[in-house]
């Protein structure tokens, strides 16, 4: 089962975790076969929010909502259950500086993707 581990950091903790730590952890996780993808993100001041309303594309500077902690990166992992996903999330280095939101990935409810 897939889980998306979203890494959230506040502005002051943004650079608290050195890149080589993240690289080391991600490499080990990938070697264990449980990592599907993982990427770090640029800060939210580089973000553009896009909406389509009445066929018109509009763009705005910045993220949709201002929050204290901002999305800093993600790990898409394959875990047996929530306990294993939490175990992985707890090892993500920035868990010490910010927080990790663990979200189960769902399957689209369309005939092509149904089991039988």
């Amino acid at each position, binding site marked *: 089962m897939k889980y998306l581990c979203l890494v959230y950091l506040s502005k002051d903790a943004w650079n608290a975790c050195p890149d080589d730590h993240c690289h080391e952890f991600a490499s080990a996780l990938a070697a264990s076969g449980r990592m599907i993808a993982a990427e770090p993100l640029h800060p939210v001041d580089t973000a553009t929010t896009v909406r389509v309303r009445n066929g018109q594309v509009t763009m705005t500077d910045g993220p949709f909502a201002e929050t204290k902690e901002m999305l800093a990166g993600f790990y898409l992992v394959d875990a047996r259950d929530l306990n294993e996903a939490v175990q992985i999330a707890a090892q993500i280095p920035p868990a010490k500086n910010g927080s990790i939101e663990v979200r189960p990935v769902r399957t689209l*409810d369309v005939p092509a993707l*149904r*089991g039988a």
Partner: protein
Amino acid sequence: MAMDGPAAGAAIDALYRRESRRVFAILVRVLGDFERAEEGLHEAFRAALEQWPASGMPANPVAWLVSAGRFKVIDALRRERRFTAWDDAAEAALAVADTSPGPGEAVLLEDDRLRLIFTCCHPSLAEEARVALTLREVCGLATEEIARAFLVPAPTLAQRIVRAKAKIRAARIPYEVPERDALPARLPAVLRTIYLVFNEGYSATAGDDLMRRDLSEEAIRLARLVRDLLPEPEVAGLLALMLLQESRRAARSDARGDLVTLEDQDRALWDRARIAEGCTLTRLALATGPAGPYAIQAAIAAVHAEAASVAATDWPQIVGLYDVLLHLEPSPVVELNRAVAVAMRDGAAAGLALVDALAARGELERYHLLHAARADLCRRLGRTAEAALAYRRALELAQQAPERRLLRDRLEALG
């Protein structure tokens, strides 16, 4: 052996009360889903009502019910598969169904009750959801009963349970007892949930009294169940703590339903059997491991339980135990309780100095018992005006009617 209708009905009814949660717990594992297990449970008992009057009760009724419930649900799943959306849980249920041994073999593990408790008390669920889910799924209380006990509207409580079950399913919270090395991280949530259930039945006296007493009994039963399967010192400590507190129930309120403080309780009304069991378990908890917070709280309750009166209580030991508890779990509420014990050991002035220092920090400003404790100490020191002020502040903050009556009586007694 065939039974006549009414006799079979009564026997099945008794079996339902005794074993339905066990059957349910096993079905959750076998079918991999709460809703389907609930369905299976009802189908199984319906089948029993249809068949047992003619065929007689089987030798192993629990195994029969699990087997019947499983068969009915899987049969329904196979039919459903052709018509509607398919999901992981259904797939898992069929996978397990096709490979697992038949009931009567490894299926009938009492462990399933423990699995159910650990799932309902998973730390990823909100505390109030854990409590509701445990009472519903492990204890088998009706949603309306739980809602009444917690004074929340039934739809709110039902919503809470539905949301928690949806999370268990979508996030795949596993149906398992954690491995030994994960236990320290998982057991506290279970114990805390049990203690919340107990306290809801013990502390608050608003609402339906009988219902509340049942909650305390359920909590004690749950703790016994966990302890049977998982004899950890903190489980014994929690069970001891609850037994010792429950032992005072008859003395805690008078005929009018008003609260009687420890000082004024008729100790002859204390339940000696529960005290004896509580004290034995406390010693066991303290002897078998590093003492945890529940064992220490049980020890404090045991010192009270073994004292003939407030004056004859070993207050130095109680203060010492609060020191240990504060070290394990720093909390302003524990500091307040310690200050009251210090007042009993060293005099009201010493206690008041500690309470004032605590009040100055502001954390307990909205906690009525801080002001009530301060009022009691001022009263004992003859500082009547200050006492009256503090009782009034406590009255502004207290929610429970019996507590408010006690505070009002004290305020009036000041003259």
